């Protein structure tokens, strides 16, 4: 007994060290259900509040850039209106014309954003009260951004394309072949598109868009362009995609609310 006590006393610091590291590893393993743990839920409120305060200063410093972006978007939208009006005037309503009550956009500000980690996350300044819920798509005026991971009353966290857990079905705009978009943790400018079979003819700088197979994004939202491709892995291309969204200067985003998501998911559930 005495030797045991002596042993404990002698190595107490080492044992404490082991105990604390065990806790840390346990946290790490739990990390996969990170968003579910309670301590984090409380923290999301606090960190969301703090980040939104700091964002005030950051936003002021980058007013000029944000302004330019808005001007550009304005021009784009005006062009689109012109095109639409032309279409309506000639009374050609195409079959794929979108139902106006299908998708709605909620404008949000990015109040916190990490870019240079392996598992990047983003915080938005809108939450459940403003109609932002789990599993909604997030886009910027340039294209795809990510998916809402979790929402509290006034804030939401987003898992962006540049997170190693991100997966999304996307397709080539020119020939509709679909593959899986993911990120390998190297640069925030590029992602990787897999599962495009070898017999497809690829052209550099070809556009890649969302496939619309999930209920999260409508079809045809810009993802990026083909930067390079290789056939190293047998029957499938490995395509390097230059992302159209610049994650390093992201301020304004839109969250997509799909009003027919439940209907589609229910139907698919019944069919299975």
């Amino acid at each position: 007994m005495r030797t045991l006590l002596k042993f404990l006393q002698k190595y107490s610091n080492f044992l404490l060290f082991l105990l604390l590291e065990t806790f840390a590893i346990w946290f790490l393993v739990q990390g996969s259900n990170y968003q579910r743990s309670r301590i984090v839920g409380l923290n999301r409120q606090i960190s969301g509040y703090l980040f939104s305060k700091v964002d005030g200063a950051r936003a002021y410093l980058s007013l000029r850039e944000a302004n330019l972006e808005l001007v550009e978007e304005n021009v784009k939208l005006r062009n689109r209106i012109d095109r639409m009006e032309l279409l309506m005037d000639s009374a050609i309503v195409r079959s794929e014309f979108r139902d106006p009550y299908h998708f709605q956009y909620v404008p949000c500000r990015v109040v916190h954003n990490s870019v240079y980690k392996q598992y990047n996350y983003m915080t938005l300044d809108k939450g459940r009260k403003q109609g932002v819920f789990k599993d909604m798509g997030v886009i910027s005026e340039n294209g795809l951004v990510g998916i809402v991971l979790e929402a509290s009353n006034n804030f939401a966290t987003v898992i962006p394309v540049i997170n190693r857990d991100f997966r999304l079905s996307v397709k080539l705009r020119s020939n509709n072949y679909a593959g899986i978009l993911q990120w390998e943790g190297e640069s925030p400018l590029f992602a990787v598109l897999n599962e495009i079979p070898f017999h497809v003819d690829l052209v550099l700088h070809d556009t890649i868009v969302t496939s619309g197979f999930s209920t999260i994004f409508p079809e045809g939202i810009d993802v990026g362009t083909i930067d390079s491709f290789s056939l190293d892995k047998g029957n499938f291309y490995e395509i390097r995609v230059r992302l159209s969204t610049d994650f390093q200067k992201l301020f304004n985003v839109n969250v997509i609310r799909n009003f027919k998501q439940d209907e589609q998911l229910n139907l698919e559930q019944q069919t299975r």
Partner: protein
Amino acid sequence: MYIIARNIFRFVVVVLFQVLVMDNVMISGYMIPYVYLLFILLMPFETPRWVVLLSGFMLGLGIDLFEHTLGMHTFATVLVAFIRPYILGMLAPRDGYEPDTFPRIHYYGFTWFLKYTLLIVFVHHFALFFLEVFQLQNFLSTLLRVILSSVLSASTIVLSQYFVFRK
């Protein structure tokens, strides 16, 4: 008592400074300054080891909560808190550390402080970055990130000695 209050205050300031200011400083994907280690570095020599370990744990946890990386910073910081006495012993001057001094440039000089900071920061970044990637596939690219970030973090910490913790 005074020293405890001062350290608690420093803890809060260091965590907030890291997550609110330093996390926005990203020179490139290879360089992220983690200056919160300052807190562990500057703890007095005679602090009991269990206090250093527990502070390391709280510090890492505090950073993890803001960075969405539950466990990673905790692991690396506890590791550093554990090896700190050994590194201090390794770098000790011939007649040991004098009473009433702190591990700072002001008392032990630039070279000593730089060595001390670099060693601690490197061990911390090594554990942190490899835990984050969790693979040995791109060993060299991760190692490069560890080295470059260590240099950046260490220089920021050394600079802070001239501007914030002058005495």
